[in-house]
């Protein structure tokens, strides 16, 4: 009999959405989940395995993995290109951008407005709706990255964001890609 903590269902439902649980999350609940995962890692792994899910761990974050892929490689490549676009945008904003980094929305906005290259990068970012207003598009983009679980708003007003540990997953993806010499 596997003994699991009461947070199991919430943790499961969060991870099953393809999201991460980061140790530097601003959400106290997520921080608690991270600790619960640390404390019961083995039990969770045993519990989730029959569901064909593996509890995986990165540097400061947890996520679910599945042995067999159910998405086509083409779809994944498109997704990876989106992530490269995100990383390129953020690194162009500040080369120090990475887990633990904090930034104010206004500072990012000002840079986007004043920096032609960054503005162009933002314009080319594929979003579901494509507002022409730079501010609107920037905010929409930040919400998208927040929803994906890589940044978190420090205040409800969305004035300041923090990059959470899960962002390292995107960086590790880039590190795995090898550029082949022509």
């Amino acid at each position, binding site marked *: 009999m596997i003994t699991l903590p009461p947070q199991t269902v919430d943790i499961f439902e969060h991870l099953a959405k*393809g999201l991460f649980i980061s140790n530097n999350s601003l959400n106290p609940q997520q921080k608690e989940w991270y600790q619960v995962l640390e404390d019961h890692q083995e039990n969770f792994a045993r519990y989730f395995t029959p569901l064909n899910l593996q509890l995986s761990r990165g540097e400061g974050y947890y996520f679910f993995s599945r042995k067999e892929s159910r998405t086509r*490689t083409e779809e994944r490549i498109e*997704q990876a290109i989106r992530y490269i676009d995100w990383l390129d945008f953020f690194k162009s904003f500040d080369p120090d951008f990475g887990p633990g980094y904090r930034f104010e929305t206004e500072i990012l906005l000002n840079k986007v407005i004043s920096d032609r290259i960054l503005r162009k990068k933002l314009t080319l970012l594929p979003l579901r709706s494509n507002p022409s207003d730079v501010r609107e598009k920037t905010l929409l983009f930040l919400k998208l990255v927040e929803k994906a679980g890589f940044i978190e708003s420090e205040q409800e007003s969305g004035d300041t964001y923090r990059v959470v540990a899960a962002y390292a997953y995107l960086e590790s993806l880039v590190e795995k890609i090898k550029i082949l010499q022509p």
Partner: protein
Amino acid sequence: MNDLSLSGLITLMFQEKRLLQWLYDLPAGTVSMENPNLWEIIRGDKERLFSLVSRGILVVEGESLSLNPTFFLPFRVSLTPGQKPSSHTITEIIDRLQRIIDQYEKSVSPQSAHDHFLNILSFTGMLRVALLLYAESAESHYHNPEQDPLSPVENLKKIYQEVSETLSENLFLTTAEDHPLKQQLFLLQKTMNILREIIQADEQRSANNTVSEDDFLKKIKQLKYLADNHLLQKNTNLSEVVSEEKALLWEEPLVINPHLETDDSQIAKFTKPTAPLLQGGEYSASKEDVFRLKSDFFQSNTDLYHFLAGHPSAEEWTDNYRTHLFFRLLSRFAADLEILPEFIETSIGNFPKIMAKK
């Protein structure tokens, strides 16, 4: 200064920080040996005073006690709360050392030469103290941008260069024969070696970080360029990398009730609101109905969702009842069904595309 040991001097200065700070802040510069505050600070321990006097840090004149003025600079740099010596202070010490050497060489009497020589000894010792304190702060990456706009490594380099030049270009110091001075210079050189090691280690660390960050930035730019020119698949192993990624991030959102039995959970790719429908209750279809539907579905050539949506009885079914039927069939006959990695988007949720196995 009887004891020229650098570590001993620094330890003592830190131990007696409160007393030295108090003396340093005294407007008159001197204090009566009978002053009650003095004895309160040293808790009546005469030995503590003696230790400072014997090292030349404190000066006793008659009934008065004062700080040795030659120590004002290191006191200022080391005893001000939260403040470490700045590169500017060290430059100041070097300048004053140079001026004292000039004065020594121009001395007109043996007594004044002797006094200047003692000052040279004090200032070389002071320089060592300040250098060590600075090195310590630089090593721990202490950095006060208002005082030192340069990075710790840059400042250390600058200081190291200045002191090296002072030591190597000053004939008085390079040809010193006097034993205490030679000993002081030897210790100063050892401190310089510590500085050099810190500079090298910091430079190495800095170089490693820069290379790594630069490489990462460069790689993102290259990948972005390849992506923009549709060369990403051709010129990288991206396909291989993404195929091997196992994170659920790459999959359609999956919502499974962990309390369901394993077999059910494998197929229950439905959204949370539909989950109770699987349990039956008011929507429970009879076993006969379910088997009849299964038989009809297997004769059809369409997916389960569209089969139910187009069923002759569909008009009589509510959305919830149809959803219930969908998952009843799915859970009951999973072994005979093929679950495709596609979803049918509907107003009440996403349904997996289910086909009968041929």
